[in-house]
């Protein structure tokens, strides 16, 4: 029997490009450490070496966001010139300019998801924009339901009867931006996976004075029992509309939300259940549990 041959592996150390501020450069010569971004590095005195890939998918996505965002903003500014009083926070389906803005919102959310910026989303304690700091739950759901209805193809649902049962005075006050992205995932899924001419119900169920469960119920094709729907890349059907990234992302967002808010009691969680109607149809119920809210001021 011959000995298995070995392939010599040579680790190539390269200059790190992960962050612009490079605090590693201020370390002492000879430091071998892991930085705040989780990258192991070695300071030779003249350069910082790391065995990390020079440009990761994440870096590419983040830079893509930077490049694309200015183009999106240019499109928004042109639509804004055509029609005053447009808003990225209010989509009017009857207006072509508003629909253009809505399409840029979808693209922006997609880029944000791909680049994974929320690994780095700021903690609480900062004052953020007035609208983002206290977003109306009803308005956000309404806007995203409308926005994601803009995308049409043969697989996406049409003629949905959508009921939104959320009090108008409820507001999301902490980490509104990740919450908005969570809602975007579920509203997009409603359009992706509902059967045509069916009813969708999005409702909030109060749990306490400051917590609600936000429930998304739609009717679609049944999923095999025990389907790992939150796993990255999982597709229930070969020709599925999605790529198995959204629900995984939703879990990441919820984890981050809990971590950033240090939520130990009543952490936010994402639950899924289905109620079989017949062999072809089931009720899919996704719930964002323990979402922190308060009455709008």
């Amino acid at each position, binding site marked *: 029997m011959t000995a298995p041959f070995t392939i010599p592996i040579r680790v190539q150390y390269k200059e790190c490009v992960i962050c612009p501020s490079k605090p590693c450069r201020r370390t002492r010569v000879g430091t071998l450490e892991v930085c705040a971004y989780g990258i192991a590095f070695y300071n030779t005195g003249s350069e910082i070496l790391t065995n990390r890939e020079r440009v990761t998918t994440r870096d590419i996505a983040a830079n893509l966001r930077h490049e694309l965002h200015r183009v999106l903003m240019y499109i928004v500014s042109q639509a804004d010139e055509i029609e005053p009083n447009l808003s990225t926070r209010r989509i009017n389906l009857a207006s072509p300019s508003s629909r253009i803005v809505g399409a840029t919102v979808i693209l922006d959310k997609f880029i944000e998801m791909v680049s994974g910026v929320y690994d780095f989303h700021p903690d609480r304690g900062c*004052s953020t924009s007035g609208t983002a700091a206290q977003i109306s739950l009803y308005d956000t759901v309404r806007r995203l339901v409308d926005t994601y209805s803009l995308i049409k193809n043969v697989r996406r649902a049409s003629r949905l009867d959508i009921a939104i049962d959320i009090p108008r005075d409820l507001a999301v006050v902490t980490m509104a931006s990740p919450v908005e992205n969570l809602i975007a995932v579920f509203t997009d899924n409603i359009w992706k996976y509902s059967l045509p001419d069916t009813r969708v119900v999005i409702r909030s169920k109060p749990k306490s004075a400051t917590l609600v469960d936000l429930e998304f119920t739609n009717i679609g094709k049944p999923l095999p029992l025990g389907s790992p729907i939150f796993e990255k890349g999982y597709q229930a059907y070969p020709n599925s509309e999605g790529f198995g990234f959204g629900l995984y992302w939703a879990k990441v967002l919820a984890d981050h939300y809990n971590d950033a808010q240090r939520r130990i009691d009543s952490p936010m969680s994402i639950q899924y259940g289905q109620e079989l109607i017949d062999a072809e149809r089931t009720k899919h119920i996704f719930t964002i549990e323990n979402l922190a809210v308060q009455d709008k001021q």
Partner: protein
Amino acid sequence: MKPSQTLIKLGKWLMQHGRLRIVIADDEAAYFNENMLKAAKSAGYHGIERIHYVTQAIFSSWLTTPPNIVILDVRNVCDSGVAKDGIELARTLLRETSAMVAVTSAHKWHFRKSLPQIDYFIEDRQLTSTDFVNELSAIVDYYLSKKARFYRHVLMRIGVSLVRGAMQGVG
């Protein structure tokens, strides 16, 4: 019910005369564009200076006469002699001047470590003119309530509350 045009006009007149000096620095022309600035002006926010780059001369002038509010992009916004990036510049301004500093970036992770020191960050980068005016209004509110002493900018305060009161009274 229509909002009272007289009250709105009076409010905007007061805002104009109690003007705050607001400087916006961003290298990209599409952000904080001309339409946005026009909309802000017609909403009563006069005294907005739009620059693309912070040179040493501008920075020195800020140290002697700081603007009330500075809105800064993070990347490619200043001379390397002034600061490494917008965040470092924001920190310097907060340390050395009384200005309120708001930052904006397409990359939210830029804010990760620097947030506690910065007054405000504009979370949505993609803004129409209407969105920008709302954002500006929130920034000015923050400035008036947290950064400026209660007896400063009295005309601005009255003007803002008159316009807002008239608008909220609708319907």
